[in-house]
């Protein structure tokens, strides 16, 4: 009897291992069946959402407030896994799709970064959504939605656009006897100013070439192009774009050799160099609209004891211009991100309504207006409503934005993130230290991008 009991127990224990597997299979079968939507049944759902409004993003509070308002309105919940929208974050997002753990709603880049999502049908097009929800994204300008480079279709709804420009620490400049750069600030004047700043014991440029060399690369290459021509991937080292990249990188190397970057620029992080600006130890920093929130958060106190919040020491100006190919008031910007609904969520009848409702809520006029409070651009047909109260830095941003004459999207977004862009920017440290020839590096990145494009077109044809 005991022997039989032992055998039965053993079989039960062995079978229990597979209990979980069996459960998931039946759940998958159920999801494919004609289940009524959550809205129809009144059942509350929980959505997995990933955005770049995490970390120190300037719109983090606006995002959290908008999410909370939607949760209160609908009774549904959001499981938020937002992060800082850097290269690591992009990789993590793409990896989540690759291993089948993608979110239901994703706020992500709509350029080349999302090509793979579109090609592999991991996200749903707006046309497809409109078949069932005709009013979806009707408050947005169709031409500004950010069509996918893959098939020209719109997949995402944008919120706020971005700009990249130069933040300056006016306290450092004042101590060095330098006036805040104005429209027409030349590269030669910039070099002279950097030399004065360096001799005074400050760091002229706050940037980590080990981690974030891309903003300086963009502007230094932009100096040799115009807003109309810049957003082009070079096809050879001798065409206009190729020459611009090489010249820009040579200028970056010159700035490094002159000692204008932090002494530890090849061994430090972006966060540490940001602190140089906050601590009034560095003068210039090229970054994007998302950094406004970081300054507002980290420089709201009067740490330097001059009787006013430290953020008043920060101004934003156009980066120095070299030559006359682009105007000094041209900068880099655009609408590069938007809300995607993933195919996985779309195919789940319990989540479909909630996803559409959530994205519609996050992209309605008044919510988008709050996200554009730092002077960002939007795709709203009615335009944004300016906030009644804005921080001193936001006011300066708005002043700068009024003077913009030309905008070009960031050229880095044309490159495949993993196989091309990441190794290219990782090699910038080797280029500036002379370990890697700049012309060869640009030739290599062109070849890598061509190989990626050939490979993806082959795999698309095969599928």
């Amino acid at each position, binding site marked *: 009897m005991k022997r039989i009991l032992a*055998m039965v127990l*053993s079989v039960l224990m*062995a079978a229990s291992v597979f209990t979980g597997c069996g459960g998931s299979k039946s759940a998958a079968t159920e999801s494919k069946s004609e289940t009524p939507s959550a809205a129809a049944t009144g059942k509350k759902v929980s959505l997995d959402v990933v955005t770049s409004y995490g970390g120190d993003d300037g719109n983090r509070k606006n995002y959290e407030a908008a999410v909370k308002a939607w949760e209160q309105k609908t009774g549904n919940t959001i499981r938020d896994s937002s992060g800082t929208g850097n290269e690591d974050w992009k990789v993590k997002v793409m990896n989540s799709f690759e291993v089948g753990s993608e979110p239901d709603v994703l706020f992500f880049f709509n350029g080349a970064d999302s090509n793979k999502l579109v090609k592999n049908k991991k996200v749903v097009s707006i046309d497809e959504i409109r078949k069932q929800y005709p009013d979806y994204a009707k408050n947005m300008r169709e031409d500004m939605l950010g069509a996918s480079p893959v098939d020209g279709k719109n997949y995402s709804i944008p919120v706020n656009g971005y700009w990249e420009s130069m933040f300056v620490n006016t306290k450092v400049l004042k101590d060095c006897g330098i006036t805040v750069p104005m429209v027409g600030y030349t590269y030669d004047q910039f070099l002279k100013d950097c030399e004065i700043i360096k001799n005074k014991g400050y760091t002229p440029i706050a940037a980590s070439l080990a981690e974030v060399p891309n903003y300086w690369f963009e502007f230094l290459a932009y100096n040799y192009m115009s807003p109309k021509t810049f957003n082009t991937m070079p096809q050879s080292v001798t065409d206009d774009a190729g020459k611009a990249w090489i010249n820009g990188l040579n200028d970056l190397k010159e700035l490094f050799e002159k000692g204008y970057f932090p002494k530890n620029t*090849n061994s430090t992080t972006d966060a540490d160099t940001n602190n140089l600006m906050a601590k009034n130890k560095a003068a210039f920093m090229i970054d994007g609209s998302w950094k406004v929130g970081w300054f507002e958060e980290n420089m709201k106190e009067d740490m330097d004891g001059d009787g006013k919040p430290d953020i008043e020491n920060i101004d934003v100006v156009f980066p120095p211009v070299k030559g006359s190919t682009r105007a000094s008031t041209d900068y880099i910007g655009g609408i590069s991100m938007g809300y995607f609904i993933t195919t996985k969520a779309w195919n789940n009848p319990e989540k479909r309504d909630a996803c559409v409702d959530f994205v519609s809520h996050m992209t309605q006029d008044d919510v988008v207006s709050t996200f554009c409070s730092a002077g960002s651009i939007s795709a709203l047909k009615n335009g944004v409503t300016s906030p009644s109260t804005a921080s001193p830095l936001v006011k300066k941003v708005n002043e700068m934005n009024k003077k913009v004459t030309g905008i070009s999207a960031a050229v880095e977004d044309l490159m495949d993130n993993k196989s091309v862009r990441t190794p290219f920017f990782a090699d910038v440290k080797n280029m500036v230290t002379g370990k890697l020839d700049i012309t060869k590096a640009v030739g290599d990145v062109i070849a890598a991008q061509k190989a990626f494009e050939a490979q993806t077109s082959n795999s698309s044809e095969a599928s």
Partner: protein
Amino acid sequence: MNAMIYRKKGALFLFLIPSLIFMAVFLYYPFVMNIINSFLHITALGDKALGVNQPWYENYVKLFQDTLMGVALKNTFLMMLLPIVFQVGIALVLALLVDNIRFGTQFFRTAFFFPIVISASALGLMFNLVFLYDGGMINQLLQALHLQQANLPVDWKDKSHALATMFIPVCWQYVGFYFVILATGLNNISQELYEAAEIDGATKMQCIGHITLPLLRNTLCTCLVLAITGALKVFDLPWVMFPSGMPMDTTWLTGTYMYQQAWKLGDVDYSSTIAIEFVVLVVVLSQAASRVFKEKEY
């Protein structure tokens, strides 16, 4: 009947099957797939292979030609050797010291063991602040002692200091772990031996050399094997402190380099090749360490 159930071993095999299946699904199957993947061309995790590499052993050739892989291997070997001195060595000294004090033994045990319970990522962030260039703890301390000019801080993460800066926290983290094992081993040595030696006029050092160390040999061997194999697998703390081989690709380890290739560069097949090389390395070195530090029967 009672005797029968112990004689027939069939039921025991049934109990072992779930674990075996678990190991097969989550360890052996992925490992076999890893070997196959190393010959294929895969550009993203979860993606289908785009075909077989040309030639099929391309990644293995690349492995031997890749200078960064050379850096990673060199650092990994260093990481394997340093714990012998700086983890087990320091732990032994501390254990001997604590074993010879009358009060506070439990306090020191807890204090030295404490770093083990802190996550490696948190330790990495903490040591980032300790070694920070601008306003870091060490630089501030040196400036306070007038050993460094305020405007000339040392970059503890530059090329000349990076390896030491990476190895110190890694070694420090596990000193407490080996300390506890060795302290327990010391407790098992009979006090009568020391008393007899004292009567014969032996000094403290002679007691350590002729009684403690020989009787602690087996415990020491276990610690050394654990330290060597554990050091080969170190990943999180170095990655938090020196992401992407910073500075100038000098701090790669086999684990961090494999991660970079798979997750950041999307070169899945090459990272599979590194993983195989890594497994071979761990198996060979573990076996070698087990043979060198073989336990003795007394």
